[in-house]
């Protein structure tokens, strides 16, 4: 089943045990745009991101309240969580290719959802790699281990792997913080391409990156969503004094 591409969050609160990591978050993330989440370390960006594909379910003692909707679907309601994650892909800070071949890495997702035919898998692998602008680089080494790729290639492979299950939304948690400038540039170009088809939510510590790639920016502080709006507005005329102090580099 297909979910929508826009996210609506109302009155979200999240607790890790007794610790409240998210406080009354309200946000609407538009479809086919790049939305950046910024804020100092520990303010809850990753936590918020992981709410959107319910990776927080894996954390013991994590409680979520409020309403999270993707399209019209309440994702904390009665849904199939694996189906949700198929619709909402994720790319992590540290590239995490599986210890298998490039091909098997990309085919992992489709195989999970029952695709067995070789021809279909071949096609998925090719289109995913093309979407991630890696096909020419990798078409001759599909059977080589993914662990032999460079860090930047590994991260783009992880993006291709996420794309292989045809997600509607892609979550990226500091996807370039471990990479060199050239690889970072490639991934940023890629996002520009990808947003024609999908919605991207990206956590970043790099404010220039947010300015370069994001249509919308959300500033988090101590578990609160302080300010949210068009990236241009946030960076040129922030409404909140705390936002201004953060983007001018005076704390965090």
């Amino acid at each position: 089943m297909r979910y929508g591409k826009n996210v609506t969050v109302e009155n979200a609160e999240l607790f890790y045990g007794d610790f409240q990591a998210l406080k009354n978050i309200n946000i609407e993330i538009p479809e086919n745009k790049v939305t950046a989440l910024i804020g100092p370390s520990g303010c809850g960006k990753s936590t918020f991101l992981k709410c959107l594909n319910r990776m927080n379910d894996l954390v013991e003692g994590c409680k979520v309240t409020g309403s999270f909707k993707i399209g019209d679907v309440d994702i904390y309601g009665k849904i199939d969580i694996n189906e949700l994650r198929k619709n909402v892909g994720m790319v992590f800070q540290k590239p995490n290719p599986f210890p298998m071949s490039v091909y098997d890495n990309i085919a992992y997702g489709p195989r999970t959802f029952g695709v067995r035919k070789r021809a279909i898998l071949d096609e998925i692998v090719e289109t995913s790699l093309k979407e991630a602008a890696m096909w020419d680089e990798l078409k001759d080494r599909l059977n080589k281990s993914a662990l032999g790729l460079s860090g930047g290639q590994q991260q783009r492979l992880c993006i291709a792997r996420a794309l292989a299950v045809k997600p509607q939304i892609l979550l990226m948690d500091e996807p370039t913080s471990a990479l060199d400038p050239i690889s970072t540039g490639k991934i940023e170009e890629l996002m520009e391409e990808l947003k024609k088809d999908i919605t991207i939510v990206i956590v970043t510590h790099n404010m220039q990156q947010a300015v370069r790639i994001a249509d919308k920016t959300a500033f988090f502080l101590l578990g609160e969503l302080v300010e949210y709006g068009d990236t241009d507005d946030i960076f040129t005329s922030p409404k909140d004094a705390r936002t201004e102090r953060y983007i001018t580099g005076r704390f965090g």
Partner: protein
Amino acid sequence: MDRTKVKEIMSKALFAIAAVICIIAVVAIFVFLILESFPAFKQIGFFKFLFGANWKPNGDDAFAGDVSGSYGVLKMLVGTLLSTVGALIIGGVLGVFTAVFISRFCPKRIKGIFNTVVNLLAGIPSVVYGFFGIYVLLPMLGFFSPNGSGSGILATSIVLGIMILPTVVSLSKTSIDAVPQGYYEGARALGATHEQAVYRAVVPAAKSGIVASLILALGRALGETMAVTMVAGNAVNYPTGLFKSFRTLTANIVLEMGYAGELQMGALVATGVVLLLFVLAVNLLTGLITGRKKSGGGRKKTAGFLSKIFYKVKLEKIGRYVSWACAIFAGVALVSIVGWIVVNGVSHLSWDFVFGNYSVVDYKRYTIGPSIIATLMVVALSIVVSVPLGVATAIYLNEYSKKGSEFVKIIRTAVDILSGVPSIVYALFGAITFKMWFGGTISILAGSLTITLMLLPIVIRSTEESLKTVSDGLREGSFALGAGKVRTIFKIVLPSALPGIISAVILAMGRVISESAPFIYTMGSSIQPMPDGYMSSGTTLAVALYRFASEGKYMNEAYATAFVLIVIVLGLNLLAEWLGKILNRKLKGETNAVRKKRNS
């Protein structure tokens, strides 16, 4: 979609069932020890048992009708402690310096050889060392002994010391190798010589690993049974002289459990409880050290103590020579033991001896064909039962259970303790419980089940360790793609942990082949004819070697058996190393290429 859900639930249930079975087995051993020893403790008195100096199961004068007996283990307690300390001094000192040598002084060219040899030697069964003790060491020591007999605390310490040597070397070496190069370079940059840098910077930094290897060795020396009975003399005495016949706690159990009456059996199980208390103490010690490692404060204290010793003896001046000397001594000792067995073993080997059957009537002509079969049967059954159960339990504990759960913590601690419990304690459990189940008769089945119990904690622990090396990033990556738990476990986690699990399985096989104490009273100690099923009695190779060697009349058979044992164990070790390499390469290499070939 529903099918995946069913699969998830079914798998979780299966893993949980395996875990429950393992937990029951683990609990059963503790319950057994407590229940069986309680009457004895009650009748004898806990402190009288622990600190009583007399062990006379039949009373002072059985002929006069005094059969009440007295049960005090103090002499054996002292004997165990002293022989363990002696073994640690010999094996520990030699081992640590040899490890320093291999890691930092050894010429590059022979380093690889040293590594392989040490790893191979670590698998040699302890009865082999006991055999060496009886035939080489005792006559040699007897030469210096006032009473002409070489047995006693000195011989025992030497045999145990040699036995733990490879373990100490290999584990200490690993931790010295792991010290970041920066420590060494930093010291050299300050003008220290190579020796100074090694002994003042590198070795102190590897301290906690070295201490951990010594503690592990201590546990092994403490729990060793058969090799000790071969060289200790076994009279119930305080070890007041180097050559005075004495007895350890483990020896006490194995020597008397064959004919013990009710109270005496209880007292033997109580001896097992004392051994368990030792293991608990050792575990606490380890916990203290590793706990300190985390806090860092106390670590400095011990490290400071270590380096103080090094300063005192000016090790950085003579260190190179000490390491060389220790390494040469250790190398010569171990290689000559193996060489002695190989040379003599090969010359007494014959097709008939290895593969022939023999009948009880013809008791002058022994063969080990039946022992090989019995050993294979035990290995097969115990691995087939313990590996699936143990791996499934480890998966349940590591992948399904709640991280902070108290219950899981207790299970982990119990598993930790049990994996250090001497095999003789399992022997007691097997001899009493399984023999009872099977109508009081010994059988290969009973022996296999006993050793299975011993393997379970080992398999669980090493599997959990391999599972922990799989990074959480991989699991998250799989979940984020919409894969469920079962798929993640079977496609991502297990393949990554496989090399570790396989080598654990092969090492477990080695353990079964090397053990002897658990089999003696569960499946047979005298040389048995060809088994015709799991219900017949049988002798494993290690037990056969013990029998041949300690009876004194079957020297040639002993040589040949020891040789066969060593060949099998070394073969297993090589197999483990090779498989590990292949699997690791495969994991990192061309997985799909292989699959493609198979598909087309």
